[in-house]
């Protein structure tokens, strides 16, 4: 009996039994009664189960519990390279007490349980004095006594706890940025304190203005506010003056220009009037302005930094060591120490550290991140493998040919860097406005001056300066940074890491969008898509394939996991690159490539021979199944398009984007996927090399904005060259580093959500700009009619800023977990 059926993609969503956060897809365990989001939750949950609560006995049990749960990964890494004096000199700090301190990035940090567990490190390992985990950055600060314990032992202990540690790269740059952050915060603090005190004094002055005040008090108050305002204007306002000066020199437009104009006009006018003892002073408005603007910029900076940090940390995940073989002994060395001609060992589950030729062993290599080919390739002695590919099945020995920057990946990364540098920054909306704004303000101020010279020459200058001050674009300067930082913050909570506010602006201008296929439109791994033939053979196949680690065997098992499996005794012979022959109980089962199976089977069920051609035509990898010498079924493996792709792309197209696929996979597969998604055939390109992707994107840039969406190293150069590069869930670290946006949740729908979110963000920005310009128009009207005094300015200014702040933080630009999508941590 022939039976064709589609095996649907099985996607299970689950919440962590300990903390309630969603469980990452990679950690889902089929059939387990409880799912956990991370190793910490699993251990804590077990402890609480046993005792009702976590207790002082916990540590021993925990250690025992952990060892049995340690994730099945390439284990027994020694982390010997961490003890290298050169490495320690670069990354560790020595304290005055002789203790060393360093920061390590930890994989798998997820929630508060992880903080608890990681910070137990001093109790687990004598010699470790302190371990402090930064939850938002997944980074632990360890201080230890080098006389008692080695850093490699610390790293192994962390690994045993379930958090694979990685040394941080670029510690010095991080240190510099952290110091800059602190200075920026200190500026905000100073500006805030000054603004508060000057405002308190201003209240007294306003009181005096209405009810009368002794002149010596008034003079005293003015002098006090002048002295108070001085540090704020010089140190805090200096940021804007420097920015304006740079912009002037480069003949560029910048918001700093009108801001500096207003600040200087206000402060100098006030200072002169204080010395003269007559006229108005605007110190309260000036200092409040500095404070609000600095605070807005600080918030934006913090948000952008958080996104940049996360992407950079992911880049630390690249292996920093290789296993060098010398006289049959494996020794861990830093990646930099590899030279061509060296012999290295690559265990199953590890990334290949350098380009080279296999000298011993056979395995399958997953090159999907490098080439876009979803089905892993069989390799044996004599074959060439590239750095950055994943060794899936078994141990390989490799003769190194090229290392570091000379490898294929290295050359690609050089391209990426070159393009990331070349990309011209766009002039943001607010800065474009600022040019016209300055011109308008200056013209209006001149007009005010001329007008009032005729009416009341003594007050003409006062009114012109008042106009300059009241139009100082506080709200205008806040409009963009606040809206952007609020949006980037919401985006991060919704699963998008956005590296800069300008990215959101660029995404609102439709152009071309090129999508990678493998891993982006599809899941990037082989799945059983079609089964034609006798269903009764499936329990036998499941039993036989359970003993193989071949990726297609795993795909078989995943698809058949819900079905019965033959319990009979199994013996198997696996032929590398061909298939598997097994005895299951009394029956013989052969599963493998058509050539492999047909050469061993005697008879083929009618119809199945043509079925192989059908499968190949549909872009699937065919596998035949023979039972007792008779071919009874054909299975098609492929990388099915994600379920949400069609609807999501339709939404994106509805926003005016022209879509296309750029893939390294075979052209016929790409054409089939593109046709399924309703894309123009001319825009579906297969067999494109990484350099080819870059060329396509670079050529399309001449015709307007280009967005590249991808996940692999092969997309990285194109991501960096595009107007906006979007790296999707599960992407390679190179893609993350090159992209402007990193999507942390799976699914093509996220792209559409990102575009919608950017549009909403820009709407908020425009609304903010309109609000603040509206306030300025009112201010200009008051100043030109001479009705403006410091009290009115002091009311108008914060009012406009407040409107902008509320408008920014109330806006629902991106959906976040709070909006009811994912359960929150209890």
């Amino acid at each position, binding site marked *: 009996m022939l039976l064709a059926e589609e095996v649907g993609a099985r996607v299970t969503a689950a919440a962590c039994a300990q903390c309630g956060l969603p469980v990452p897809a990679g950690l889902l365990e089929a059939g387990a009664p409880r799912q956990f989001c991370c190793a910490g939750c699993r251990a804590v949950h077990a402890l609480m189960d046993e005792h009702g609560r976590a207790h002082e006995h*916990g540590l021993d049990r925990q250690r025992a519990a952990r060892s049995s749960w340690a994730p099945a990964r390439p284990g027994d890494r020694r982390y010997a390279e961490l003890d290298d004096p050169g490495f320690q000199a670069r990354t560790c700090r020595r304290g005055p007490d002789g203790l060393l301190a360093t920061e390590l990035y930890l994989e798998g940090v997820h929630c508060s349980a992880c903080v608890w567990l990681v910070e137990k490190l001093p109790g687990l390992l004598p010699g470790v004095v302190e371990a402090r*985990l930064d939850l938002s950055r997944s980074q632990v600060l360890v201080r230890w006594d080098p006389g008692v314990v080695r850093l490699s032992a610390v790293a192994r202990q962390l690994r045993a706890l379930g958090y694979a540690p990685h040394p941080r790269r670029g510690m010095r740059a991080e240190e510099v940025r952290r110091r800059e952050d602190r200075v920026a915060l200190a500026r905000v603090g100073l500006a805030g304190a000054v603004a508060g005190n000057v405002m308190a004094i201003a209240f007294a002055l306003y009181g005096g203005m209405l009810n009368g005040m002794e002149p010596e008090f008034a003079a005293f108050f003015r002098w006090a506010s002048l002295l108070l305002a001085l540090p704020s204007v010089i140190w805090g306002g200096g940021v804007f003056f420097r920015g304006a000066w740079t912009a002037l020199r480069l003949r560029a437009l910048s918001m700093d220009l009108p801001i500096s104009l207003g600040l200087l006009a206000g402060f100098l006018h006030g200072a002169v009037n204080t010395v003269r003892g007559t006229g108005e002073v605007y110190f309260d408005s000036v200092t409040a302005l500095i404070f609000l603007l600095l605070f807005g910029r600080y918030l934006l900076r913090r948000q952008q930094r958080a996104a940049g940090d996360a992407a950079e940390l992911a880049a630390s995940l690249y292996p920093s060591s290789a296993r060098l073989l010398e006289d049959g002994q494996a020794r861990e060395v830093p990646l930099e120490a590899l030279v061509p001609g060296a012999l290295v060992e690559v265990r199953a589950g590890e990334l290949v550290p350098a380009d080279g030729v296999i000298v011993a062993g056979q395995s399958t290599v997953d090159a999907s991140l490098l080439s876009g080919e979803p089905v892993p390739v069989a390799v044996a002695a004599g074959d060439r493998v590239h750095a950055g590919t994943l060794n899936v099945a078994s141990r390989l020995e490799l003769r190194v040919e090229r290392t570091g920057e000379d490898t294929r990946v290295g050359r690609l990364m050089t391209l990426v860097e070159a393009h990331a540098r070349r990309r011209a920054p766009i002039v943001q909306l607010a800065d474009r406005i600022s040019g016209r704004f300055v011109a308008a303000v200056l013209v209006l101020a001149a007009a005010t001056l001329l007008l009032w010279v005729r009416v009341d020459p003594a007050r003409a200058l006062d009114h012109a300066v008042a106009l300059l001050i009241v139009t100082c674009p506080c709200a205008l300067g806040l409009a963009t940074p606040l809206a952007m930082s609020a949006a980037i913050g919401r985006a991060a909570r919704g699963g998008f890491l956005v590296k800069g506010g300008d990215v959101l602006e660029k995404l609102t201008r439709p152009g071309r969008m090129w999508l990678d296929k493998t891993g982006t439109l599809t899941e990037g791994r082989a799945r059983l898509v079609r089964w034609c033939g006798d269903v009764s053979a499936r329990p036998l196949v499941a039993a036989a394939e359970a003993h193989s680690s071949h990726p297609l065997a795993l795909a078989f098992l995943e698809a058949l996991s819900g079905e019965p499996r033959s319990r009979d005794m199994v013996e198997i012979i696996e032929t590398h690159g061909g298939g598997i022959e097994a005895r299951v109980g009394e029956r013989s089962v052969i599963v493998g490539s058509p050539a492999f199976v047909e050469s061993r089977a005697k008879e083929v069920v009618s119809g199945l021979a043509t079925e192989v051609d059908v499968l190949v035509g549909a872009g699937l990898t065919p596998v035949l199944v023979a039972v007792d010498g008779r071919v009874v079924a054909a299975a098609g493996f492929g990388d099915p398009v994600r379920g949400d792709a069609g609807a999501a792309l339709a939404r994106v197209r509805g926003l005016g984007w022209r879509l296309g696929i750029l893939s390294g996979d075979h052209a016929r597969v790409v054409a089939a996927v593109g046709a399924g998604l309703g894309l123009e055939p001319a825009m579906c390109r297969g067999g494109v090399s990484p350099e080819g992707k870059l060329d396509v994107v670079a050529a399309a840039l001449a015709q307007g904005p280009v967005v590249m969406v991808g996940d692999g190293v092969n997309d990285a150069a194109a991501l960096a060259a595009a107007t906006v590069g979007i790296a999707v869930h599960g992407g390679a670290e190179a893609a993350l580093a090159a992209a402007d946006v990193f999507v942390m949740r799976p699914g093509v729908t996220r792209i559409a959500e990102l575009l919608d979110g950017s549009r909403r963000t820009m709407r908020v920005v425009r609304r903010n700009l309109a609000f603040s310009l509206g306030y300025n128009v009112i201010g200009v009207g008051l100043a030109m009619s001479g009705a403006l005094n410091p009290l009115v300015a002091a009311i108008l200014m914060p009012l406009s800023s407040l409107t902008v702040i509320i408008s920014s933080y109330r806006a629902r630009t991106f959906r976040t977990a709070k909006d009811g999508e994912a359960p929150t941590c209890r």
Partner: protein
Amino acid sequence: MFILLPVALLFSAAALGVFLWASASGQFDDLETPSVRILHEDDEPPGR
């Protein structure tokens, strides 16, 4: 009044000094983890 105002300003200068010290010593670098850390029980009595 001529004494009161400088005294008030001294107070706020002291508060500003504390803030500057706190930001310089990195107490604002991580705003998320400490809120979680308080929830963990001490295994050993404090004051070792």
